[in-house]
C-alpha cells in the first residue's frame, strides 16, 4: 500500500525539482551553485519553498530569554532573511534544502531546457561487445563464486528437515550438495561508447575566470554525454607551445605561460585516438577551449591537421573560444573559413559565464 505520506512526499519532491528545472539556467551558468558531487548524484541547494503569510519581520521584533548576560549584550544575529515569528528567538532563517538529483535526471532537465536532441550514435548496429553478467545460480562452480547466502539457506533447510537443527546451538554445516554458485551469461550489447577529448589552452593569457567557464561547461557536456552513452571515456590535453596529456584534476588547475601552438594539441589528440579509440568502435567528441591566440604561422598547420586526422573521424569537433583580455581571438576566424565544409565542426564564442548556456546548446544541439 502506498502510504499517504509517500505520495505527499513525492509530490513535494516533484515540486522542488521543478524549482531546479525552472532555474536551470542559473545553475548552468554558475557551476559553483552545484553542491556536493557524488559518483551518481549531485545535490543542489535550493531555497526552501514556503507559503507566505502575513508575519512579523525583524524590525521592532524581540522576545524573552533566560540566562546570564548584561543589558546590551548580543545574544544572536538577525538573519538577513529570517522569518522572525514575533518570538524572535524562535526564528529559523530561510531554509536551504538540498535536492538530490541523479546525474541522469539532471541531464534530462538539461536536455529539456536546451531542447537538445537525442544523439544518434554513429556506426553500425553490428558493432557489439560481449559482456558477462552474473544473473543465475548453478550447483557447480569455483569457490570464489560461491553464493554464501543461498548455500547457507539450503543447508539450514536440509538440517531442519532432517531434524538436525538445534536453535540453542545453531550450527550449520553445508555439504557439497548444499553449495550454490553464481553463474554468468554472456550477452552481447550494441556498442555505444563515447570518447571525449578535452583540449585547453593554458598559455599565459588564460586566466582563472576563463578556466572556470571551461570547467562549468565541460561538467554539463559530460553530464549530457554520459546520459546518451553507456560509458564515456575522457582524456584531457593541455597545451601552450607544447601539449601534454593530463588527468582531470590537473587539467583544471594547471597554469602555464608562454606561447601558444595549437597544432601541438591536435597532434596529441591524434595520437590518443590512434592509441585508445579506434574510430570504428568509438563515438569521438573533441572539445577545445582557447582564447584564440595562436602563433600566426601555426594556423595553417592546425587546419591541415584537423582536415587530415580529426574531422574525418570524430562525431563532433567543438571549438569554444573564451574571451580573454589578453588574447587576440583570431583563431576562430581561421576555423570559420572551413566551417562550411565540415558539418561536424561547431564553433562558439563564450564571452562570459552567462554565455555558457547558449554555448552548450550550440555544441550539443546538433544531435551528433
Amino acid at each position: 500500500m502506498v502510504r499517504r505520506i509517500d505520495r505527499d512526499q513525492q509530490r513535494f519532491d516533484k515540486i522542488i525539482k521543478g524549482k531546479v528545472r525552472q532555474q536551470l539556467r542559473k545553475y548552468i551558468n554558475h557551476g559553483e551553485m552545484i553542491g556536493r558531487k557524488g559518483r551518481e548524484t549531485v545535490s543542489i541547494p535550493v531555497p526552501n519553498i514556503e507559503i507566505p503569510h502575513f508575519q512579523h519581520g525583524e524590525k521592532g521584533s524581540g522576545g524573552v530569554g533566560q540566562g546570564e548576560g548584561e543589558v546590551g549584550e548580543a545574544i544572536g544575529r538577525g538573519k538577513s532573511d529570517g522569518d522572525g515569528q514575533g518570538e524572535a528567538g524562535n526564528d529559523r532563517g530561510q531554509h536551504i534544502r538540498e535536492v538530490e538529483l541523479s546525474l541522469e535526471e539532471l541531464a534530462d532537465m538539461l536536455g529539456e531546457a536546451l531542447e537538445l536532441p537525442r544523439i544518434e550514435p554513429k556506426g553500425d548496429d553490428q558493432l557489439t561487445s560481449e559482456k558477462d553478467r552474473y544473473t543465475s545460480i548453478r550447483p557447480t562452480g569455483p569457490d570464489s563464486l560461491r553464493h554464501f547466502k543461498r548455500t547457507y539457506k539450503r543447508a539450514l533447510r536440509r538440517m531442519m528437515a532432517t531434524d538436525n537443527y538445534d536453535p540453542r546451538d545453531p550450527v550449520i554445516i553445508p555439504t557439497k550438495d548444499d553449495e550454490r554458485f553464481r553463474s554468468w551469461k554472456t550477452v552481447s550489447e550494441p556498442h555505444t561508447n563515447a570518447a571525449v577529448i578535452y583540449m585547453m589552452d593554458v598559455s599565459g593569457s588564460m586566466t582563472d575566470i576563463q578556466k572556470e567557464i571551461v570547467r562549468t561547461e565541460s561538467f554539463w557536456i559530460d553530464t549530457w554525454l554520459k546520459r546518451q552513452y553507456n560509458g564515456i571515456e575522457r582524456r584531457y590535453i593541455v597545451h601552450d607551445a607544447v601539449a601534454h596529456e593530463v588527468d582531470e584534476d590537473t587539467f583544471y588547475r594547471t597554469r602555464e605561460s608562454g606561447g601558444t601552438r595549437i597544432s601541438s594539441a591536435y597532434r596529441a589528440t591524434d595520437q590518443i585516438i590512434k592509441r585508445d579509440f579506434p574510430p570504428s568502435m568509438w563515438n569521438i567528441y573533441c572539445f577545445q577551449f582557447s582564447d584564440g591566440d595562436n602563433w600566426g604561422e601555426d594556423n595553417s598547420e592546425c587546419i591541415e591537421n584537423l582536415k587530415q586526422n580529426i574531422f574525418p573521424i570524430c562525431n563532433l569537433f567543438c571549438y569554444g573560444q573564451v574571451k580573454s583580455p589578453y588574447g587576440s581571438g583570431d583563431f576562430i576566424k581561421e576555423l570559420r573559413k572551413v566551417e562550411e565544409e565540415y558539418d561536424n565542426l561547431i564553433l562558439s564564442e563564450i564571452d562570459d559565464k552567462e554565455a555558457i548556456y547558449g554555448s552548450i546548446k550550440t555544441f550539443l544541439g546538433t544531435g551528433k
Partner: protein
Amino acid sequence: MVVTTHRPLPKVLCDIQQEMEQHALDYGLDFFKTIFEVLDYEELSMFAAYGGFPVRYPHWRFGAQYDELMKGYSYGLQKIYEMVINTDPCYAYLLSCNDITDQKLVIAHVYGHCDFFKNNAWFSHTNRKMLDQMANHSTRVNQHIDTYGYETVEMFIDTCLSLESLIDPYSPHIRRTQKTESKADAKKRSEIEGEGGTGRFPAKMYMDRYINPEDVLEEEADQKRIKAQEMADQLKFPKERLRDVLHFLIQYAPLEDWQRDVLSIIRDEAYYFAPQGQTKIMNEGWASYWHSTIMTKHGLTDQGLINYADHHSGTMATSPNRLNPYKLGIELLKDIEERWDKGQFGPEYENCSDMFAKEHWDKDLGLGREKIFEVRRIHNDITFIDTFLTPEFCYKNQMFSFAFNDSNRTYEIQSREFQQVKQQLLNSLSNHGRPAIYVQDGNYKNRGELYLEHEYLGVELKLDYAQDTLVNLHHIWKRPVNIETVVDDRPTILSYDGKKHSTDSKEKQ
C-alpha cells in the same frame, strides 16, 4: 481507510500504562480514555507531519514536513518522543525505540496533556471527533481533486494556506456582533426617517400655515437629506472591523462552491489547532509538572534514574535566545503551587513592605495543588503570564527581554526590568506571535476593493511575505486588495491590483 498502525501495546508498556494511569487518577487528573500506540520513527514522523492525524487531505507540505523530520532524525538533530492528539478518546503515539524509563516518563507526560485537553476552557470548543472530521475533509478535497484536477486544487489550497492565520482565535468563546439592530440605532433611524417622512405636525387646516411654516419645513427637509447621507456613510461594509478575515472571505468573496468548501476546510482546521498555540506554555508546563511529579514520587527505579534525569533536563534546557515553554510552564506552575501553599497572595501579602517577612511568608495553607488545577482550567498563556508572573520569579529565572538592533542586525539583551520583560513576553505571545489583521472595508473607495488593517504594535510586517500574501488574497477576492500597516516607521498602505504592487506611505507621524 484508517492507517493500519494499530497493534496491541506490548505487555510491558500495557503494565506501565495502567500504573501511570492509576497514579494520574489518584492525583485527580481527569482525562478522556487514552489509547496508546507504539510506532517506529517513520510512522511517528508521518503522524507528526499530519499534525497527529492519520488521514488528512493530500498536500505537499505534509511531505515536506515529513522529509524534514526524517532527515533531522537520521542526522541526529532531533527526535520526537511522543505525540498526543486532542480527541475523545485521546490518541497518543509512543516511539518504539524509547527505553523503558523514557516510555514511563512519556506516558505520564501524555496523561498531563490529556487532562489539559479535556479541562482547559480554551479547548472546550474544539471538535473532539476531529479524527473523523479530518477524514471527511480529506474525502471532500479528494472529490474536488477528482472533479477539478490535482494541480488546480493544490494551487488553491496553497492560496488558502497563505491566509490560514487570519482567524479570530477568541471567536468560539464570545459573540462579536449582534445581528439585531441595537435600540439606539433603531431610534436614530426612525428619527431620520421621521413619521410620515415629512416632519409635519398634525394641525387643523386653518392653523397649518402657522404650525408648519413652509421655510422651516424646507430647512428640516435639507437637514434630513444631509443626515441620510451621513447615515449612508455609516452603512459601511462590514459594519465594524472583523478579525475573522477567512469568514468574511467565505461569505463575500466571489468563489466557486468547491473553492468555498476548501477555504472552509482550511479555516475549520485552523480553528481546531488554534488553542494549542494559545496554551503552549501552560500545556507543556502542566504535562511536565505531572511527569516530573509522578516519576519522582512513583515511577523511578534505581537504574532508570540517570536516564530520567538526562531526558528531563534535556527537555528543560534553556538558551538565551529561545524561551523554552516546558521550562517556563513548569517553573511558573511550581511557583504558583508554592505561593498558594504558603499563602503568598492576596492584599495582605501584596501590601507587606517588609521584604524579609515576605520572603519567609508561610501561612501553611496548602492551597497550592487546588490552585494549579484551577489555573489549568481557566487560563491560556497570556492570562497565565499576566496573572502569575512575579518580579521574584523573573529574577530567580534570570529572565530578560531582548530586541532587534537594526543598526548591527543582532538581537541584544534589552532589559531585566520586570515590567519590560513581562510586556515583551505578553507581546510575543499575543495572537501566537502573529500580526493581528482585520477586515476594515469590503468596498473600499466604493470600488469593491478589500481593505485590511494590520494592528501595529511595534513590530513591522515582513514586507516580501506580505506582498506575496496580498497576491494570494487577490486570487480569492479578485478585486484590488490593500493592507494598512507600518513600513519603516511610516503608516503605509500596501496594495496589489492583480498586476502590480504599490506602496503608499504617509509622512512620518
